[in-house]
């Protein structure tokens, strides 16, 4: 018998199926992975440190650069954290629009996921179809805030502007056609023999392990844990909307995580439909002269408003000295902002709990049990990681 030895190879950082610049060091026994070591940090921009030298309002555009596929969710989590710090009440109208836009961002993020995940495994068509629908969502963003990817969609206290003309119609049109499109993706993949063989019983993680490895979001729900922050600790107006939490078959493999995300897209669509019908009238941003700049018309005509405006832009507001943590159910899992304020106009420390970073560590567990190199690609795809969020 010839003597064999383990082979150590690099996968990435410039590997298309590592979804960015993730480097994996694989120890291989033949084609079977014996050990996997993720190496992160290739996209480190020091975002948490940057926050310490910016006022609270200035930091908002930087949060777009965390999970760049769902920038709106990042904006929401940050705004909620600062609002919690200030004790600011957000108008109902703003909350409803926030829910609509974040749910659309969930759909957009999942569409990129289904496109790239299927592409990694070898199905090219869903990628084209998914990006076609994503384009409609980006058009809605462009209509609302003027930008497609790095949206800077919300402001502390509400929205930057009221919803524009044609916004409601455009969202309604999208929600009407979208469920049929999900059926289309499912027709291509869900029962396809190749898809089943590549995803079923690959990268299994049990519910208990998932919790211990601090998995969150669809990746945890794929293991059968009914945990969703939108239900557990409702923020915005999620307690007024009806939706289900899909959990898949309860095995916790790649296929389960796929099923969960597909169903989540339908549920998100349902949430958007309900929310768009319920948008109440009223203000789109809170009235709080000490924290929120007054409306532009007032600034141009009223000296008091102008003084407040100058004060807020030049030095920002000074929140009370305390610590807050606010989290939301982002497309990838629990996204939280932990802000330590020392009473000055800049955060003393800002820690971002990003879902991709926490989810990636469960790859140690998923790779157990004789997974092959090709399975590693499927597992990374099913975790739906974004490196902008991991390295920050």
């Amino acid at each position, binding site marked *: 018998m010839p003597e064999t030895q383990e082979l150590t190879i690099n996968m990435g950082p410039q590997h298309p199926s590592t979804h960015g610049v993730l480097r994996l060091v694989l120890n291989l026994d033949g084609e079977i992975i014996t050990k996997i070591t993720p190496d992160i940090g290739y996209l480190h921009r020091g975002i948490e440190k940057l926050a310490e030298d910016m006022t609270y309002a200035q930091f908002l555009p930087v949060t777009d650069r965390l999970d760049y596929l769902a920038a709106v969710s990042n904006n929401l989590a940050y705004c909620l954290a600062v609002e919690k710090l200030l004790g600011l009440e957000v108008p109902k109208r703003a909350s409803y629009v926030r829910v609509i836009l974040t749910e659309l961002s969930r759909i957009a993020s999942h569409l990129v996921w289904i496109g790239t995940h299927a592409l990694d495994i070898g199905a090219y068509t869903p990628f084209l179809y998914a990006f076609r629908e994503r384009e409609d969502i980006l058009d809605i963003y462009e209509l609302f805030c*003027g930008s497609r990817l790095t949206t800077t969609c919300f402001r502390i206290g509400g929205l930057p502007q009221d919803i524009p003309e044609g916004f409601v119609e455009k969202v309604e049109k999208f929600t009407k056609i979208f469920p049929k499109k999900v059926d289309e993706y499912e027709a291509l993949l869900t029962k396809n023999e190749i898809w089943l063989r590549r995803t079923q019983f690959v990268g299994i993680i049990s519910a208990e392990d998932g919790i211990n490895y601090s998995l969150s979001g669809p990746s945890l729900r794929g293991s059968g844990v009914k945990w969703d922050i939108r239900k557990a600790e409702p923020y915005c107006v999620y307690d007024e909307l009806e939706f289900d939490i899909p959990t898949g078959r309860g095995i916790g493999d790649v296929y389960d995580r796929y099923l969960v995300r597909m169903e989540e897209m339908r549920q998100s669509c349902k949430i958007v439909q309900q929310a768009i019908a319920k948008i109440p009238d009223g203000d789109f941003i809170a009235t709080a002269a000490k924290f929120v700049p007054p409306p532009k018309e007032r600034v141009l005509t009223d000296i008091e408003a102008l003084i407040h405006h100058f004060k807020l832009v030049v030095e920002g507001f000074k929140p009370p000295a305390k610590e807050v943590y606010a989290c939301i159910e982002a497309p990838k899992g629990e996204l939280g902002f932990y802000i330590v304020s020392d009473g000055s106009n800049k955060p003393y420390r800002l820690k971002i709990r990003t879902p991709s970073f926490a989810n990636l560590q469960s790859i140690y567990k998923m790779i157990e049990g004789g997974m092959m190199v090709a399975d590693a690609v499927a597992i990374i795809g099913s975790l739906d990681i974004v490196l902008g969020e991991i390295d920050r």
Partner: protein
Amino acid sequence: MKINRVISSIIEFIRGLSVTFWHLFVPSVTLQYPRQRWTVSDRYRGLERLAVDEEGRERCVGCCLCAQMCPSNAIKIVTGEGKDYNKEVISFEIDIARCLFCGLCVEACPKNALSMTGEYELACYNRAGMIYTKEGLYKSPDVTRYKK
């Protein structure tokens, strides 16, 4: 058992193909970009521009709020003394290589002098071309470098 799986896989194969087949008759959604253009929304955040008032005077008073607000320090303003003890804006530069196009500067402007246009084709061959001075920003945007 095995034969069932073979049959079902053939059915699913045909079902998948039928989806792609019907897409042959769906109109194409791709835009032939440089030849075809899409109209950007009214709120599009493209290249910044400075405005003049009804009498043709510069609206910008050099308060530097936009420069203060900018998260990436893309705006540089130099002010000095002008006629009749008035403050004068000597230079106003936006480095769009640093610009995030977040629109915070527009919100910060207390004179409605700064706004954002629908201009998005801002690529150029050197870094110097990325810096827009006062003269360029007061003119209506004419920066499209693509020639047919």
